[in-house]
Structure formats: structure tokens, C-alpha cells
């Protein structure tokens, strides 16, 4: 019995060569499911905690392995691709060529809808990609079921519509109209008029937090919780009017592109931006985020497209490394001005909203082939949609969880008790403060009395104030005589150490 068991374990370790390759692949996938590295348990002194955590880490390893195997063997569909042989370039492949090669279901996804009267169209898709909302500038709002190509509802609001956004599912959508924004139900009834925001230029919905974010014509950012209607934050950006706003799906921060070429990132709980990046010499024309949250693409009016790494806030050197190059191109009919491009979730389809309506083109490889029913289900029934809404509400995150690095949530911060600074450190800090005070340049007043003696007096006062925040030095200097010298402190026995001067 025991011998047989040993044999089995040996067989597990020595695999045939092709299976060994698969092993490497599986390991790479496993890494993704491990979500980072394990904790360092060597530094723990508590034995019970150590064994408990060690057994947990083992469990994580096992579950990552199981998930990697499921991904390899059990997923129903595989990703789309476009492969050319020989010298043919992928960007020369036209949509008509693609239509010839793919099946009927996919070729139904290529179409052009011509609606010349109602102005440039903005698009939005629900999270599952099943429903689409098209909003024309001249007031035409249309809710379409993409799977059956059914027009669910269309309304004419008879006002300028600048942007449209779905809320958490297809039952509610928001439209940014001429003076205010409005929230509509699926059957076209106007539910709310959002007066506080003013004339909105861009509307975006943060799914996990149920926040409707918008930037208006004055350059103010508004965040509103749509579950109970409270305005969570109104932020004056101070950078003027902009209509370039995108949400980073990884961490929920809102990025604005400004006319000076800067991109600023905001969170609702602070009045100052989290990050300010100078991206372009001229105005920023649009922004896009990678779903994993590490990459951002910006384009400027100087006809340049840049890709940024958001961990280091540096530009990714695209062309030279060859990672980013042109994949496909599609030329629109002459005279069409493109207003919005948006990939449809879970499908290899790109929706284009333009001045004569909207179009849809096939981009093989752009969609996630395997959806998870609990995250977003394109084949949802009414019951499932209702249950999902309740679960989404239960899992609603508070606005404080929006931060640049969301992995900090649920992590323990090492507790550091504030130690008393040594004398050397205090000195250094004092120097820094005094230097800062001396470096402050006082405004030279031209109106009124501006005697040089008064200016020097004022400067001296500033330096005095800086010094005054470090009072301990004076006290310790007074008690110098009674205290034992620093050199002798090291040689003192433990019981007398408290009489030595703290060093």
C-alpha cells in the first residue's frame, strides 16, 4: 500500500516533455491568480499565527493552481485573432475582407446606421455589452438591444445632448442636456433633473461606487451617489473648461485632460488632484485607460498619441520597442466626423459614433471571449438582472475607497510608534526650516512705504518663527551641566541609562 503511494508521487514529479511545457504555461497562469507574492512569514515571532498563515498560503497556492487549470481546460470560448501571412500587413485588411471570412453571426455586427439629421452621436454600452445607448447632439436618445438589434426606446428631448451614460444597468440612463442633466428610465420617463451640476460636458458612471461623475462647462467636477441622490463632492478644478474626462476602471479615479496639456487625476474625497502630469505641449484631445489600470493613452492636438505607464507616471517607449504598433484601420466615408469610439464589452466589436449616425466594425481579438455570469451576463433574464442589482447595491463601495493604489485596502499598516527624534535629527530639521524661511522671497511692494529696514525686519521675524518651533534645544542646553556627557552614555549600565542625555 505504501509502496504504491510512493510510486504515484514519483510519477507526478517526472512528466513527459510535452506535459512539462504545459506545466510552464500553467505556472504563468497561476501567477496571475495568486495576485501578488505571498507574505514573508520569517519575520513573525508568534508561532501560532505563523502556522495559521502558512497553511493559508498553501491553500491560496492550491486554489491558484485549480483556477489556472480551469482557465486552460474548461473555458468555453477562445479569443479572436487576425493573422496575416507573409508580407501582408494587418492594417491593410479591410472590413469587407473580414466579412468574407467570418460567420454570419459576426458579420451581423458590421453595419452603418445613417441618421444625418440629429447630429454627432455619442455612445455608451452597458457592462455586459448587451444594450447600447446612442445620443445625438440634436436631442435624439435611442436605447438599442444589441443582441436582437431591437430598438427598445427612442426619445427626442428637443435640446442639445452633450453626453449619455448608462447607470448600473440598462434600466436607467443619464443624459447631459443643454442646461441640466437628466436621468431617464428605460421606457423614456424622465426621473430626475440634476440641477446642481449645471451644463455638463461629460458624464461617466463609476460602477463599484454607484457614483455619477461629471465635468461641467466651468470646469467643476461633481460626484453624486445615485442610490440616494446625495452630492458626494463638488470640486473646483481651477483649470478651466474641459470636456475630456475618463474613469480608470482599476481604481475608480477620474482623469481630466486640460487645454494646457496636463492630465489631472481626482478622487471625490480631496479638493486637490492626486496627480498632475504634463502630457502634451498642446491641449489634450482625449484619454483612454487600460482595464488593468497600469496604462493610459492620451492624444494631443499636436497629432501625437502617447502611452503612459501609470505606476511610474512615465511614457512607455512604444515605437522603439515595437510593443505598440498599428493593428487595423478603417476609413470612414468622407465627410463623417467621428465623435466617439468605444469597444463593446465581451465582443470583438468597435462602436463608432459620428456626425451621420453610428457604425460598428469588427476588430478581431479586442473582446474578452469568456464572460463570468456573476460579473456581467449578456444573456441575463429579468430575474437575474433584479438579483444582480440587489447584490451590486450590497457590495457598493464608499467613496473613500477611491485611491491610486486600491491594493492598500484590507492591508495592515505596520504600526510605528512615534519615537522621540534624536538631537541630531532635530538639528537637521531645524536647519531645513530655517533655510526654507530664509529662502522665502518677500514681495517688493511698490505702493506705499517700502523701506529696506522694514523688509529685513520682516525677514528676521520669519526666521525667528521657524526657529521657535524647536524649543527643546533651549531646554536641554539649560540642563546641560547636570547631565552626563554623551560619550559616557554608551558605557552606562542599564539602570542608569535614563539619566544620560537622550541621543
Amino acid at each position: 500500500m505504501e509502496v504504491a503511494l510512493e510510486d504515484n508521487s514519483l510519477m507526478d514529479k517526472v512528466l513527459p516533455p510535452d506535459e512539462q511545457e504545459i506545466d510552464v504555461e500553467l505556472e504563468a497562469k497561476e501567477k496571475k491568480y495568486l495576485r501578488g507574492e505571498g507574505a514573508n512569514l520569517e519575520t513573525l515571532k508568534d508561532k501560532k499565527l505563523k502556522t495559521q498563515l502558512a497553511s493559508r498560503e498553501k491553500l491560496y497556492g492550491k486554489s491558484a493552481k485549480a483556477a489556472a487549470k480551469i482557465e486552460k481546460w474548461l473555458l468555453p470560448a477562445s479569443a479572436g485573432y487576425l493573422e496575416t501571412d507573409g508580407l501582408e500587413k494587418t492594417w491593410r485588411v479591410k472590413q469587407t475582407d473580414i466579412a468574407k471570412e467570418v460567420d454570419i453571426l459576426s458579420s451581423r455586427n458590421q453595419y452603418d446606421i445613417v441618421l444625418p439629421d440629429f447630429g454627432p452621436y455619442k455612445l455608451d454600452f452597458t457592462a455586459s455589452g448587451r444594450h447600447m445607448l446612442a445620443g445625438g447632439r440634436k436631442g435624439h436618445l435611442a436605447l438599442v438591444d444589441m443582441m436582437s438589434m431591437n430598438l427598445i426606446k427612442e426619445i427626442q428631448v428637443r435640446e442639445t445632448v452633450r453626453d449619455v451614460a448608462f447607470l448600473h444597468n440598462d434600466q436607467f440612463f443619464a443624459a447631459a442636456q443643454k442646461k441640466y442633466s437628466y436621468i431617464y428610465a428605460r421606457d423614456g420617463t424622465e426621473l430626475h433633473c440634476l440641477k446642481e451640476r449645471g451644463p455638463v460636458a461629460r458624464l461617466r458612471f463609476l460602477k463599484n461606487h454607484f457614483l455619477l461623475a461629471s465635468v461641467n462647462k466651468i470646469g467643476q467636477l461633481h460626484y453624486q451617489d445615485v442610490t440616494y441622490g446625495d452630492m458626494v463632492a463638488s470640486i473646483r478644478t481651477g483649470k478651466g473648461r474641459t470636456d475630456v474626462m475618463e474613469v480608470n476602471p482599476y481604481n475608480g479615479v477620474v482623469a481630466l485632460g486640460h487645454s494646457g496639456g496636463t492630465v489631472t487625476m481626482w478622487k471625490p474625497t480631496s479638493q486637490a488632484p492626486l496627480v498632475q502630469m504634463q502630457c502634451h505641449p498642446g491641449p489634450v484631445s482625449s484619454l483612454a485607460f487600460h482595464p488593468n489600470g497600469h496604462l493610459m493613452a492620451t492624444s494631443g492636438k499636436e497629432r501625437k498619441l502617447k502611452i503612459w505607464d501609470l505606476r511610474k507616471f512615465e511614457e512607455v517607449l512604444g515605437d522603439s520597442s515595437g510593443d505598440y504598433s498599428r493593428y487595423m484601420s478603417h476609413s470612414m466615408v468622407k465627410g463623417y466626423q467621428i465623435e466617439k469610439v468605444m469597444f463593446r464589452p465581451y465582443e470583438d466589436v468597435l462602436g463608432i459614433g459620428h456626425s451621420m449616425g453610428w457604425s460598428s466594425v469588427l476588430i478581431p481579438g479586442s473582446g474578452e471571449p469568456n464572460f463570468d455570469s456573476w460579473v456581467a451576463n449578456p444573456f441575463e433574464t429579468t430575474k437575474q438582472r433584479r438579483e444582480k442589482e440587489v447584490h451590486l447595491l450590497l457590495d457598493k463601495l464608499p467613496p473613500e475607497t477611491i485611491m491610486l493604489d486600491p491594493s492598500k485596502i484590507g492591508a495592515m499598516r505596520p504600526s510605528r510608534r512615534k519615537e522621540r527624534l534624536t538631537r541630531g535629527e532635530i538639528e537637521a530639521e531645524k536647519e531645513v526650516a530655517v533655510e526654507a524661511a530664509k529662502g522665502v522671497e518677500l514681495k517688493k511692494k511698490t505702493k506705499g512705504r517700502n523701506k529696506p529696514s522694514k523688509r529685513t525686519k520682516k525677514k528676521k521675524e520669519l526666521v525667528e518663527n521657524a526657529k521657535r518651533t524647536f524649543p527643546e534645544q533651549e531646554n536641554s542646553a539649560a540642563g546641560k551641566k547636570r547631565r552626563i556627557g554623551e560619550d559616557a552614555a554608551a558605557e552606562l549600565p542599564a539602570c542608569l541609562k535614563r539619566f544620560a542625555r537622550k541621543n
Partner: protein
Amino acid sequence: MRIKTISRSVDEFTRERSQDLQRVFHNFDPSLRPMEKAVEYQRALTAAKLEKIFARPFVGAMDGHRDGISCMAKNPNYLKGIFSASMDGDIRLWDIATRRTVCQFPGHLGAVRGLTVSTDGNVLVSCGTDCNVRLWSVPRPSLEDSDLSSEKSTEPSAVYTCKNALLAVDHQFEGDLFATAGAQLDIWNHNRSQPVQSFTSGSHSVISVRFNPGEPDILATSSGDNHISIYDIRMSSAARKILMRTKTNSIAWNPMEPMNFTAANEDGNCYSFDGRKNEEAKCVHKDHVSAVMDIDFSPTGREFVTGSYDRSVRIFPYNGGHSREIYHTKRMQRVFCVKYSSDATYVISGSDDTNLRLWKAKASEQLGVILPREQKKHEYNEAVKNRYKHLPEIKRIVRHRHLPKPIYKAKAESRAMNDAKRRKDDRRKAHSAPGTVVTESHRTRRIIKEVE
């Protein structure tokens, strides 16, 4: 040129007939779930709050005795029944489901000090301060008992007298011997009227006795001169003896790890020992502020319940230093005995106010039939709460318990006293020559010595 695009046909992804279940597809890729950690934290917070909302541990009280309850016994063969005895000699068999007396066993003249049931559930042994040991035959539970308007009473099947008052009794597992504790430790057989074996040690009386569930010949006793002794009845004297600083009121063996036992001590702590190695306690369980009167292990061996003189019942993990749960009521006075039910769901406490109280072992547990999806949800909530229970927001909610004012004040006082003591010891140590002042670990602090 090879092109492939995603094309999903509707029938592959939806159900065929309306009787089928809906199809569910999984993709565990973390990139599909942004902010999953924050969502999990939010769920842990909600789970912690829900647990507190549903925490209703008190099920009911069993009323009937006319004097304070001195001891209880579980029937190993019958889950619903529990025996209890009071200070005026009244022994009753209770049906826990209906919380009513099934049968009474009158006969004792003084306080009944010990109750135990044989392993096959047929014989109930009781002993008391009237120097008697009485054996009763336990009535078989039948369908007639369900309409309980009559409270039956039975005659003892045997009465044995001895010279001194008896303080405790326990029955051997899978055997027909039982041990009584009084002036000395006696081992009896059901059929003999005199003890088969006697152990005397010193001049102090033996307070409590408990047989080991794993080894039927080993038993642990505690005596009034602060000793804990382990006896093997095949030998003539104690196998091991531990001398503590204060007396032990009760001992319980861990049913899943029969070499370990936990002793409920007069100083408010419970000490878990390894029966083979007695120099230091395996774990010190500290949370009671007054003497711990009784202790009983859960059949899972993972928790034990203690009842204390400070009017509270606490549930401890078997290897943890602090209690997981505390139960108290304004009406419950000094708790003299506790039992953990054999299905690990309930805790029964008998106290000075003549009532037996039934509590849930897990305060927010949903009793009754639970559907499998509900069960899974409960398990998920438990797991996600345990994952984040060390973070401040959730820790505050999970740890929060309302303590009665006397216990709260006593704890604050003892904390202040311990802090002061520790500070003084640290300073004494710092001001003495290194190595002269040695701090004792808590596990050895209360043990004076071990005697072979």
C-alpha cells in the same frame, strides 16, 4: 489570412427548456473584477454587522427547581435529555426541546453534589451530602412522554451509604465503574455496596473527579489542598500530581485529544495541561474575574464552556487565551454548572437562581433546517469576516460585547493592577543586576511544583 471573431450562439448560452436550471459560466480572471479586495472588505463589514444583528443566544430557561442547581449530567445516548440536581436534593430529567421536566428522582435528603450517567444511558448515579450514593434506572424515552402533563417519579434501584459526605461523582467510559469524591477517592461497581478501591492522599477532601474519555482507567481529581492528581485505577497511588496556588473547582478532558485536560481554577483562570507533561500549562485561558466553577468541552474538542462565580458563562477556544463569547443575564446569578450539548449546538447553564438556561453555542446561528444555498452563504460570510477580522473597523464590531457593570469594572481594575505590576517588575528588573530577576511565564506562574 486567418481571422476568427467571437460569436456566441444564443442556444449555447441559454437554457433549453424552462424546467432546466439557468446556465452559469465562470471566468475567475482577476482582471474582470476591478477593486475586488475593496468589495470583499465591504462584504466582511456587512457580515460582521449582520452577525451582531442576528446574535440572539438565549433560547429559554427551564424552571422548576426550588433551590439553586448544584450539578448537571448529560445522557450520552439521548440528545434531548439532561439531568439536573439542586441543593435541596431534587433531581430532575428535562426534555430540552420542550423545556419541561420529564421525570423526577426524589430521595436525597441533603444537597446533591454529583450526578453522572453510565455510558449506555441506563443508570443514573447521584451522590450528596447525606453520605448516600443512589443509582436510578433512567426511563426510556418513548412517544408517550410527548404529552407531558404527568411528571413521573421513580424509586432508586440501589442506595449505598458511606461514612462521609460525597462531593462529586463520575462514571467510567465504556465500563461499569464509577468514582466518588469526598473525604477520599472511591471506585465503585454498580453491584457492590462497598467501594472496590479507595485512594487516600493527605488529609484534604477530593473536590472533583473526571474519567478520561480515551483511556477508561485514568481519571483526574482535584483536591482542597490545591492539588490536581491523575490516577490510574490499576495502580495504588497517584500517577501524577500538580500543586497549584489555588484550588481547582472542576476538570474536563478534551474529547478529541484525550491526553489534554483543562482545569477550572479558583483564581478565575482555566489552565490547559498536557497530561503527560505537567511542568507548565499548555495554555492559560484568562477572562473570568471571579472563580470558575465548572467547565465542559464541546464534543468537537475545539471549544469549551465555563461557568463562573461572577454570574457569566464564557466560551473559550481550546488553544486561545481569551474567550470568544460571553453570556450573561440580569436574572442569572452565580453559575455553578455548565454543560455543552452533545451536538455542539447548545450550552446549558445551571445557576443559583434555580433555573437552567439554554443558550446557543454560536449566538447568530440560524437553527432549524437550512437550505444548502443559505448554508453556503453563511459559510462565506464567516470566512470573509475571519479574513479581515484584524482590521480596526471590523475588529471593533466583531469584538464588541456588552459586559455587565460589575464585570466591566472588575476587568478594568484588574487591568490597571496588572499594568502597574508589570511596570514595577520591569523597573525592578532594569535596576537589578542582569539575570537576578527572572520573569515567570504565565504558564508556570501558578504552578508551585509537580510531584511524581
